[in-house]
């Protein structure tokens, strides 16, 4: 069965979420992957959205983090101060699942500006919930397309010091080594280490035990496509 690089990325990201885990979900690809996980190997995955929805079980993918579907299928809907203060801040959440506009070799994330802060070349949306999602969840997984634009050697602004335990891209998987530097540990089928190096703005270290990601199964693809 044929599949796209984005589908491979989404499936690989979904597989990182264990059944029964509590996951604070960013919108976009992280939300798609989290919902795929819940519909496949992790039916007990608890999805938390920063709009205040706890335990959402959407049947279609939300466009925003506050779509009605997230609230009407939730176990509880709480206020925004409450979601950050009572649920995120004390460390009740297992996994923060984030996207990024830019990422450096230590997994710091920039979603604020490209260029100088006071005279930005490109103004991005800003922090949102990410700084505290990054600092308060027990672990962080970042899902982001890998390119020279996103994987940069030095950020103009550190929005969130994410220190992810894993970064899932459309090319492969990166994990930190003992020093905290991201190392390529898996390649998706058909991607070479040189492809990954060419899409990385720093000299990318490659794990000696580099593996190949299992391709999406027919079942994973069927569920993923049914969510759209």
């Amino acid at each position, binding site marked *: 069965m044929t599949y796209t690089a984005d589908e491979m990325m989404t499936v690989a990201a979904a597989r990182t979420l264990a059944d029964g885990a509590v996951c604070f979900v960013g*919108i*976009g690809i992280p939300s798609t992957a989290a919902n795929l996980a819940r519909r496949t190997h992790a039916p007990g995955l608890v999805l938390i959205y*920063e*709009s*205040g*929805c706890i335990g959402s079980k959407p049947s279609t993918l*939300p*466009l*925003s*983090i*506050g*779509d*009605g579907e*997230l*609230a*009407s299928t939730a176990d509880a*809907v709480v*206020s*925004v*101060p409450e979601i*950050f*203060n009572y649920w*995120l*801040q004390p460390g009740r959440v297992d996994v923060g699942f984030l996207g990024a506009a830019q990422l450096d070799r230590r997994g*710091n994330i920039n979603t*604020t500006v490209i260029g100088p*802060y006071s*005279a*930005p*070349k*490109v*103004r*991005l*949306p*800003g*922090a*949102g*919930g*990410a*700084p*505290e999602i*990054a*600092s*308060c969840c027990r672990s962080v997984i970042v899902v982001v397309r890998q390119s020279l634009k996103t994987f940069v050697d030095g950020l103009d*602004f*550190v*929005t*969130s*010091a994410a220190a992810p335990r894993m970064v899932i891209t459309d090319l492969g998987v990166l994990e930190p080594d003992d020093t905290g530097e991201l190392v390529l540990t898996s390649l998706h089928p058909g991607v070479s280490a040189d492809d990954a190096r060419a899409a990385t703005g720093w000299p990318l270290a490659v794990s000696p035990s580099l593996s190949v990601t299992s391709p999406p199964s027919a079942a994973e693809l069927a569920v993923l496509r049914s969510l759209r």
Partner: protein
Amino acid sequence: MAVITSLAEAVAEVVRDGDTVAFEGFTHLIPFAAGHEVIRQRRRELTLVRMTPDVLYDQLIGAGCARRLVFSWGGNPGVGSLHRFRAAVQDGTLEIEEYSHAAMANRYVAAASGLPFAVLRGAPGTDLPSVTPSIRPITCPFTGEVLTAVPALRLDSAVVHAQRADRAGNVQLWGITGVQKEAVLAAARSLVTVEEVVEELMPMPGAVVLPSWVVDRVAHVPGGAHPSYADGYSVRDNDFYQRWDAISRDRSAFEGWLRDLHR
């Protein structure tokens, strides 16, 4: 006690030139119609406050109502950037003051609580304190832990949309209720637009009630959250959010949208 009045009168009374004003709503219940009335009445020099400035703030900024923006995430949810906001920041015509969501939410809580500041764990490693000097470290007097303090976010005016009010001006909202209660309680003046004015507020699961005596003006504006939505009354017009990208990107398309609004 809240006075039930027309939207035009309510906006004229509650939102004044130079105000620090929040039109709150976390994706749900965004007071679009009230914001559009502010544009029609040509308010100027506003400090716009909101956790998630989205399409409505893009419109207010593009229309020239704002001098300053206090916020934590400025984008078109699920679609991309706000191009009027982005252009105004990039060409230096809009001052900004930005926080994380957790910090903004706690700034509202502090103001609603009558406190000068809020305390939170914060996020080590973020560059935000280097550009927003009011994010400061504070030492816990009991444990010695270093935490983060942010100042209370006091507002001149707050504008929110809700499902219902009764004839006495008591307001009820439910579904995703965001920080609307905190925004209203943080403000010197407040305006609530509602889908419906009813004889009696029937209890709803998870509802927030704002008693009449903390609200200044209520205006009956069915559909007043569109293209956002009101749980139980409408669904989010995701197509509009997607269409806004092209309008916002092109200054002349935006000017056309603005002319239609003033008609």
